[in-house]
């Protein structure tokens, strides 16, 4: 029995998981832009998802929002810590919130772009409410922002699709979805 317990506690006892970070799908915006990007039929074979995004928008002072198949429910809420190069500020949003805000003040030009790295933790676990977190930012040599944000969807539904929307994204924007095994 002692050997069994020892084996369980020992780091060496855990078998390595090969190929634990895998590319699932990528969407690159062509000429003319798009109003939204959706990843559907997401495999349920990973533990976490990571979305790596680079985007420009058609409207200044706009934002992108991440929604999921389960939607936002009663109790959904989000928070953001924002730095605009002059001051640090914190925001929260609840009423009408449908998903994670990636940015507070996105760029309107084609270049440079805004970038985000969004983690969807335990996205298949139907015992847990779904929470996402993001690190985002854009700098335009004289203006810019960096954001740390999170959102609670308040649902235990597994995430099977992800939609990025809120404003039109410009040509050359790209969204790459990855899966991380446990």
């Amino acid at each position, binding site marked *: 029995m002692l050997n069994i317990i020892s084996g369980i506690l020992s780091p060496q006892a855990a078998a390595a998981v090969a190929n634990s970070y895998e590319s699932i799908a990528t969407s690159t915006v062509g000429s003319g832009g798009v109003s939204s990007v959706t990843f559907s039929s997401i495999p349920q074979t990973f533990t976490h998802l990571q979305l*790596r995004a680079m985007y420009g928008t058609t409207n200044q002072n706009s934002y992108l929002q991440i929604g999921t198949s389960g939607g936002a429910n009663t109790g959904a809420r989000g928070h953001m810590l924002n730095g605009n190069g002059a001051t*640090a500020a914190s925001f929260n949003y609840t009423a009408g919130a449908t998903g994670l805000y990636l940015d507070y003040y996105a760029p309107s030009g084609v270049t440079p772009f805004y*970038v985000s*790295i969004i983690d969807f933790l335990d996205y298949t676990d139907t015992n847990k409410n779904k929470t996402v977190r993001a690190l985002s930012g854009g700098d*335009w040599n004289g203006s810019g*922002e*960096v954001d740390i944000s999170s959102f609670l969807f308040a649902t235990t539904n597994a995430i099977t699709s992800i939609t990025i929307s809120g404003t039109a994204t410009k040509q050359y924007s790209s969204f790459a979805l990855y899966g991380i095994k446990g």
Partner: protein
Amino acid sequence: MAAGATYTPIATTTTASSAASVTFSSIAGTYTDLVIIVNAGASTNADLHLQFNGDTATNYSRTVLSGNGTSATSSRQSSVAYYRADNVGYLNTSFPNFVGVINIMNYSNATTYKTALSRTNNAGTGVDASVGLWRSTAAITSIVLFPDIGTLTNGSTFTLYGIAAA
């Protein structure tokens, strides 16, 4: 279906002999993003700077969000000769208090300016999140990392990974 495994280690450098900088060169353009994991110290209080493709002109800028245990602040550098990844969580002699993850997004395209997104910390001084811009559409093929003053502590590690999108 998943398109394949990625997050591939490209190169690792462990410093010795009071190195002034670390360089990753001949970076292949076969990935979408680059990630650099840093665990480092310096001979004195110093900021971690990056330059791409040997560009030492004032083509860089950054915005940073910082917390030092007393207050949260944000600041900016414009038209400078480097991307400074940290602010209050800087390199110092308390090795290895400084750790950082630097993401260089879409580094290999020849269409857009290049943006880096970092989270860096020094457990003894503070935490930072920063975004840096290199105003060049050239694909990044080399990266040099260096403290703005002094040298890197022997044993500092810098690991470069590549992430390929489907």
